[in-house]
């Protein structure tokens, strides 16, 4: 039955034990899971191809569970980033804060198509990936607020969060790309059939070290998926003003490339699966361009409206929001109910709120930690403080 059957009943007061004698109205959704479509196939946009005969499939299958999981992931990232925005405006987060809202389908789609044992590295707009790679909301927000419960104990901040098989979080534009190629080299060297997803933006796409990396990755057939998250603006500079060629999927020249709708999580997933198969089969690297959009400015200090119009931002929000698109797909195919999504939203809101609570109440790192972790696996050493009498201690 398509319509929800809801059964309301008022609990009779006199039948309840004394302590429970409060009026309550219980709404029970009596639809069982058997009423939902367990799986559906969706048409996805065709990818533009460079040096490839065939590309990713034009249809994507989605199970109910997958859909709810992708929704949850993207909504969590969305709410976490909006919470970070709030905390930044309250001056509880300082320094750089580059938010990812709008681009959630990229992180969610990529994670859905690779293994936890694969590797991933990105630039400074990293909170989404930090989450998809396994770090809790709590540890991310506490790192942003510079507390000892942060994933890097407050030592790193927004751009320097790490996890197993996740190499940050890198502040120098483009520097992460050779690093990613090196991680791929390690995968090849160790013969473990793992690969490295190496992300960069449309701004970084013009860095020389990228082309050095492309050359070596192709020469040595490194299992590296180079992914350009093209959100149309490198800080305040539009792609047309920065690049002689804005076909970022072609910039690998001799490396095959795919241009992907980065607002559609299924498109991202299928394209990344395709790319992963390419790498794992020993064909070498591949370039993917994800066409995406960020709602916020470059960072919290950029209102984001001096180089683009509010109308443009609003149009993307209404027509291409990745979370809305997935939700509508699932609803119109009867894969889930409105209430279910609401429940998920409520749960996520609660989790983010709790994480923010932690992030604002956890203490800052102790001063004793100031000089620690300079080296790894090293005997303790003395570190000079601000003056000659200040002799500080560093342990690994």
């Amino acid at each position, binding site marked *: 039955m398509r319509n929800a059957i809801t059964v309301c009943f008022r609990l009779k007061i006199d039948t309840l034990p004394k302590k429970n004698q409060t009026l309550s109205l219980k709404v029970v959704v009596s639809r069982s899971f058997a009423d939902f479509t367990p799986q559906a196939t969706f048409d996805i946009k065709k990818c533009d191809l460079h040096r490839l005969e065939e590309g990713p499939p034009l249809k994507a299958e989605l199970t109910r569970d997958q859909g709810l999981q992708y929704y949850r992931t993207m909504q969590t990232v969305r709410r976490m980033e909006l919470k970070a925005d709030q905390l930044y405006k309250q001056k509880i987060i300082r320094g750089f804060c580059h938010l990812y809202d709008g681009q959630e389908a990229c992180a969610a789609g990529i994670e859905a198509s690779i293994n936890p044992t694969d590797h991933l590295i990105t630039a400074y707009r990293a909170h989404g990936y930090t989450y998809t790679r396994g770090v809790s909301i709590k540890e991310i927000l506490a790192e942003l607020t510079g507390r000892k419960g942060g994933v890097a104990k*407050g030592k790193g901040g927004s751009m320097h969060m790490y996890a197993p098989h996740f190499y940050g979080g890198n502040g120098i534009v483009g*520097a992460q790309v*050779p*690093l990613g190629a*090196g991680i791929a080299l390690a995968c090849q060297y*160790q013969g473990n059939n793992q690969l490295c997803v190496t992300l960069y933006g449309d701004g970084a796409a013009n860095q020389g070290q990228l082309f050095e990396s492309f050359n070596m990755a192709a020469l040595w057939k490194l299992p590296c998926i180079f992914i350009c998250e093209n959100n149309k603006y490198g800080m305040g500079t539009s792609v047309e003003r920065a690049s002689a060629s804005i076909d970022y999927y072609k910039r690998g020249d001799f490396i095959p490339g795919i241009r992907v709708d980065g607002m559609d999580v299924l498109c991202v997933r299928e394209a990344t699966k395709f790319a992963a198969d390419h790498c794992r089969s020993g064909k070498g690297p591949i370039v993917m361009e994800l066409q995406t959009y960020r709602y916020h400015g470059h960072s919290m200090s950029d209102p984001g409206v001096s180089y683009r119009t509010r109308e443009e931002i609003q149009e993307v929000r209404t027509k291409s929001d990745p979370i809305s698109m997935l939700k509508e797909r699932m609803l119109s195919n009867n894969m889930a109910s409105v209430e279910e999504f609401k429940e998920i939203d409520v749960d996520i809101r609660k989790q983010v709120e709790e994480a923010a609570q932690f992030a604002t109440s956890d203490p800052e790192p102790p001063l004793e930690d100031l000089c620690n972790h300079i080296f790894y696996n090293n005997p303790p050493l003395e570190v000079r403080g601000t003056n000659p009498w200040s002799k500080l201690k560093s342990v690994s």
Partner: protein
Amino acid sequence: SPLFHKFLKEALNKVPKDKCVTVRDALNQAMDEELERDERVFLLGEEVAQYDGAYKVSRGLWKKYGDKRIIDTPISEMGFAGIAVGAAMAGLRPICEFMTFNFSMQAIDQVINSAAKTCYMSAGLQAVPIVFRGPNGASAGVAAQHSQCFAAWYAHCPGLKVVSPWNSEDAKGLLKSSIRDDNPVVFLENELLYGVPFEMSEEAQSKDFTIPIGKAKVERAGSHITLVSHSRYVGHCLDAAAVLAKEGIECEVINLRTIRPMDVESIEASVMKTNHLVTVEGGWPQFGVGAEICARIMEGSAFNYLDSPVTRVTGVDIPMPYAKILEDHSLPQIKDIIFSVKKTLNV
């Protein structure tokens, strides 16, 4: 008698033999031994494989270990240094060769921002066990762009260890320690020393011979003045000390071996004995190794033992010229050290 000669011969055979090994061969041995010991160790850089190394330091390694472990790179310092750092992050132990450290400037962001700072930024979650090695400082006739000493630049940065060997034992023992260290090490060699043979004790010839990073060595004991140096100029100091000894001035010569962390305690202990200090380096004077030693001595317990200010002997504060006569006068000569010692001692 024949029996006595036989007995003598046998006795002499039991005495440990010091062997003469060039710095180049010592470095080669170190890498060979570490490549054999740990399969995660590999070497990459320009011409390191099939060419046997631009300066032949990696001679024979590609033949022995093959393409997987000895990797020729294109001329892409920033790219291959970054690749090396990434490989280190993902569990390997790369040796990244810069043909000279002058070219490391192309890649210096990867050395500092990706390698040196990462352990700290990640609060110990992400180690970077990498060695950056290659010739540093002046060579002969290679002019300004190929002659800079980078000891001060790299030693400025927390998160790096900076090592500067002088002789073959230093080269082998320190390179092995650097490769075994779980942190980024900048290993500054000297092209002019590659071909120089030094005696290497039997102990130093063993596969387990390492020299600890961060400890200086007193190469020559003395009582009148302390000379502190690193790399090639240790030899100059010893030569100067030999000349000065004939005039009754006994120099204590300290070989720093490591620039960062600097073994200030050894310098202080020596200064407290001799009361005079001269630093000798090939690099430029401003903000250099000698400048740092002066500052540290002033801040520490040895200051009160100085009978005169510390003297720095350095390269001349100019880009390196080409003509031989000019080049010779751009770097400390033995006579400059002797002159400075006498001025410091006021004799």
